[in-house]
């Protein structure tokens, strides 16, 4: 079976390409064109899913070379378990998102060019698959750029909204800054290779030979380069702008998997190219992850736009994954390979969990937008009675992301806590304490996530509708919620059967770290059910779920026996004598107000109350209440950087005279300088 994996992979890429071209063919018949391209995307995702599953289960490494005669670039691809794992995540989410899009793109029929959406969407999925399989720095940079540019066009799909254009430009600028950093990192490594080959295989060999100073430089370049894509603080600025701007089906893929390609980059660089790494690298990565996690969720907490909220929460989750990677690096630098593998497993487990529940959440946000045409949760309310299928799906996702057992978010956080506790084996006391403080930060983050998603679900789905948009909402087409149902099922499955996921992840960790801990993690208890076991404890979410169901049934049975004819009288809510109105309900802003007060150093809340009086000063005509959060990072980080860049560019503006003679002179001078250098 393994020998067919490359063929399956190539077929899937060809199908993606075909899908994107087909979309363009149907000129006058947009709906069909869009439909066919999305079906192609779904089938292609199936092929890549099978290919990556085969590679993952066999643990083999497959090379795909396209030997072109006298080619400057070597088109080398490599599917090892790491690539296969990321490709699996990409294709699972790609498959669901493609089916979801079939319903969601009806929103744009006759309004926008859906062919273009199909064209770019297919290319986007294909480019991500190529990113995680490229085995050559130049190929990697090409597909990395392709991914950035294609997703840029998806972000500005609704380009008549100026905010979307701004988001798109911010995204493309930051993506290119990141790419530049990566290019420099590759060049520095290339300088030590010695051959004219940018292959990753050479980089793997050269990493250990590089002088420490260069390794440190590359380390920081990679943090910035991939960190921009991962949205770590303070490089996150594009993420909460671009993800909400894109259509929801695209946000699903962007937030679910695109930002994970950065994690892929971290793993390749820090575990394969730049080995062995000093412990402080891991500590830096750990601290970056922890601060992104806490800051991301704090900003999500005050957000009222549901998609921006989800985008900030993606930053938080990426932070948690990066904590896992950082821990793994620390353990590895102290040669504690089994623990390193455990931490890596926690990170990768959280990676697929986040991909699944975040796509589900973005799908729900898309459903809300489809049904109500608004993303502001203050205008929603009461949707649980109107979107009856979307509501439980959102609830499952909200529970998963808040790490509530027995759903999948809990399992990965549990693994992370276990690996954090194991930090007592690290020799350095300071690193031990830092690690445990990170554990406390994860705990705080978990509680804040719960608050954030109680707010998101409670305000938008429960109580009474706060606007006409919400009042007249209708359930979305079945194809949308059926595809999301798959994701919700995965959330439950991955939470209750962690042993299966561990066995899937095992080849990845075994490939990267060279140690096989999968067997030691899975054990059987005295009732012969499968449990997960670390050196601290054991956990069996399956039996906890079963116990819960038994207790629930017993409670219900006992209560029914006690009083078979239990009556529920339905009456309106008591609101101190007034009739209940949506205006009396608690709002999202009010719900998170205590946090705004507690963390006021971070938020710097701005408050403006304008009171208008009629004739006399005793009669108030209207009160306007404006509250906001000071964008600290924009003001104190991006502002100075932007001013600096603008200052330099105004400074060198005089070079551009517009006269062709002057330009020819420039070229001539450059040529002479180059000759002088080469002549040496």
């Amino acid at each position: 079976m393994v020998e067919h994996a490359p063929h399956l992979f190539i077929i899937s890429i060809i199908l993606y390409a075909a899908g994107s071209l087909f979309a363009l063919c149907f000129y006058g018949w947009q709906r069909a064109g869009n439909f066919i391209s999305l079906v192609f995307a779904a089938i292609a995702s199936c092929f890549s899913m099978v290919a990556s599953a085969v590679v993952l289960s066999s643990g083999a490494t497959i090379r795909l070379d396209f030997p072109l005669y006298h080619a400057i670039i070597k088109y080398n691809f490599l599917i090892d378990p790491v690539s296969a794992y990321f490709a699996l995540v990409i294709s699972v989410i790609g498959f669901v998102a493609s089916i979801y899009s079939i319903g969601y793109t009806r929103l744009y029929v006759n309004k926008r060019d859906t062919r273009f959406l199909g064209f770019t969407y297919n290319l986007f999925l294909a480019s991500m698959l190529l990113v995680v399989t490229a085995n050559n720095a130049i190929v990697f940079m090409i597909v990395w750029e392709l991914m950035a540019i294609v997703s840029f066009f998806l972000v500005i799909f609704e380009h008549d909204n100026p905010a979307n254009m701004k988001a798109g430009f911010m995204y493309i600028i930051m993506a290119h800054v990141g790419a530049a950093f990566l290019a420099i990192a590759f060049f520095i490594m290339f300088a030590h290779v010695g051959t004219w080959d940018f292959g990753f295989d050479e980089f793997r060999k050269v990493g250990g030979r590089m002088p420490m100073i260069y390794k440190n430089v590359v380390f920081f370049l990679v943090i910035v380069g991939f960190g921009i894509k991962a949205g770590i603080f303070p490089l996150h600025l594009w993420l909460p702008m671009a993800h909400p701007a894109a259509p929801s089906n695209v946000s699903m893929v962007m937030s679910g998997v695109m930002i994970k390609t950065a994690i892929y980059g971290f793993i390749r660089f820090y575990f394969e190219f730049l080995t062995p790494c000093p412990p402080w690298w891991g500590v830096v990565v750990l601290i970056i992850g922890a601060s992104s996690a806490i800051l991301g969720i704090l900003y999500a907490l005050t957000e009222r736009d549901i998609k921006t909220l989800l985008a900030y929460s993606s930053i938080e989750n990426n932070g948690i994954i990066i904590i896992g990677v950082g821990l793994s690096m620390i353990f590895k630098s102290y040669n504690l390979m089994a623990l390193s593998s455990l931490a890596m497993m926690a990170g990768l487990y959280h990676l697929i969990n986040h991909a699944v529940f975040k796509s589900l959440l973005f799908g729900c946000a898309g459903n809300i937008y489809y049904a109500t045409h608004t993303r502001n949760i203050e205008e929603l309310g009461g949707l649980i009675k109107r979107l009856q299928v979307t509501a439980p799906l959102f609830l499952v996702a909200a529970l998963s992301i808040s790490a509530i057992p027995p759903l999948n978010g809990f399992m990965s956080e549990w693994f992370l806590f276990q690996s954090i506790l194991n930090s007592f084996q690290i020799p350095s006391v300071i690193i031990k304490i830092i690690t445990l403080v990170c554990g406390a930060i994860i705990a705080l983050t978990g509680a804040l996530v719960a608050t954030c998603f109680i707010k998101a679900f409670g305000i938008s789905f429960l109580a009474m509708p706060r606007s006409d948009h919400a009042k007249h909402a209708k359930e979305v087409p079945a194809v949308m919620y059926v595809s999301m149902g798959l994701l919700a099922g995965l959330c439950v499955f991955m939470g209750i059967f962690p042993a299966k996921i561990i066995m899937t992840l095992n080849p990845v960790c075994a490939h990267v770290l060279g140690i096989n801990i999968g067997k030691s993690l899975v054990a059987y208890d005295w009732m012969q059910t499968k449990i997960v076991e670390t050196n601290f404890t054991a956990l069996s979410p399956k039996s906890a779920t079963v116990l819960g169901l038994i207790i629930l049934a017993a409670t219900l049975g006992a209560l029914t026996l006690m009083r078979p004819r239990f009556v529920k009288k339905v009456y309106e809510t008591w609101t101190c004598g007034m009739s209940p109105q949506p205006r009396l309900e608690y709002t999202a802003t009010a719900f998170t107000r205590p946090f705004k007060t507690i963390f006021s150093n971070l938020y710097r809340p701005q408050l403006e109350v304008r009171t208008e009086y009629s004739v006399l000063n005793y009669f108030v005509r209207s009160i306007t209440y404006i509250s906001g959060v000071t964008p600290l990072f924009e003001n104190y980080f991006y502002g100075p950087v932007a001013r600096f860049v603008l200052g330099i560019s105004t400074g060198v503006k005089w070079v551009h005279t517009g006269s062709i003679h002057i330009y020819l002179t420039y070229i001539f001078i450059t040529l002479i300088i180059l000759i002088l250098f080469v002549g040496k």
Partner: protein
Amino acid sequence: MLQMLIILGFSPLVKGFINKIEARLQCRRGASIFQPYYNLAKLLRKDAVVSETSSWIFRATPYVVFTSILIISLLVPVLSAQVPLNFTGDVILIVYLFALARFFLVLTSLDTGSAFGGMGGSREMMVSAMAEPAMMLSLFTVALTSDSTNLSNITNTLAHNSILLLNPSLFLAFMAFAIVLIAETGRIPVDNPFTHLELTMIHEGMMLEFSGRYLALVEWASSMKLLLLMTILVNIFTPWGIAGGLSVCGLLIACALYVVKIGFFAFLIVVVEMSFAKIRLFRIPNLLGTAFILSLLAIISLYVVR
């Protein structure tokens, strides 16, 4: 199974006991210590009134809350350090099962569309979010002292190596955990369980709309939560006399000691409640910050002492 029944059966008694002593110390006669049982029995026999704005979340919540608390009661060592189901989960699962119950309660507080519920829910989340890091760090301290996060193993280790209990870090962790316990169960000085003013309610505010059977389940669950957290505290930090196996004699001694210890801690809670006034809402983070610092010191001293 036995310990589930103990927790289920005794939790209203503990609540009644606390109320009685508190009344006595306030020079009142107070209700009988069995009053909570009468309340529950009455409530279980009544019909319920449900708000017309609420949804199935409202009706599911009491069952979810009750079930998740009961699962915890199966995992916590009460009389014997040996818990048959201890493979099911550890202390982290317990913390997150409490979170499950809280998640649904707070959702319900928003479900009825009354502002009081939302206010209570929002404050509850604030208190629990602030308490979470301190709780985790103090549990980490205990886990690192006894090399396990499984409560039954922790109790076993600590019961057999009393020398470990003299560790100063455990004392600090105990202080932090005690503060967290008061915050989590909504006692004075964080929240007043007897308040009659909706604006000052935290925990009670969320339960405002429940009635009949639903109220009974939620009330019962919250008194079980109090007893469970006290049991965890008692059996981690003072595990003397807890039965190692499942012999009848050992269980009887353990039972007597357990009653004495829980009674003592209930008395301590009453003393704290008597000697403090409820603090302002935005002073609570300071209190829980203190707990966090204590637990951080516990971790640091653990490593320094080693």
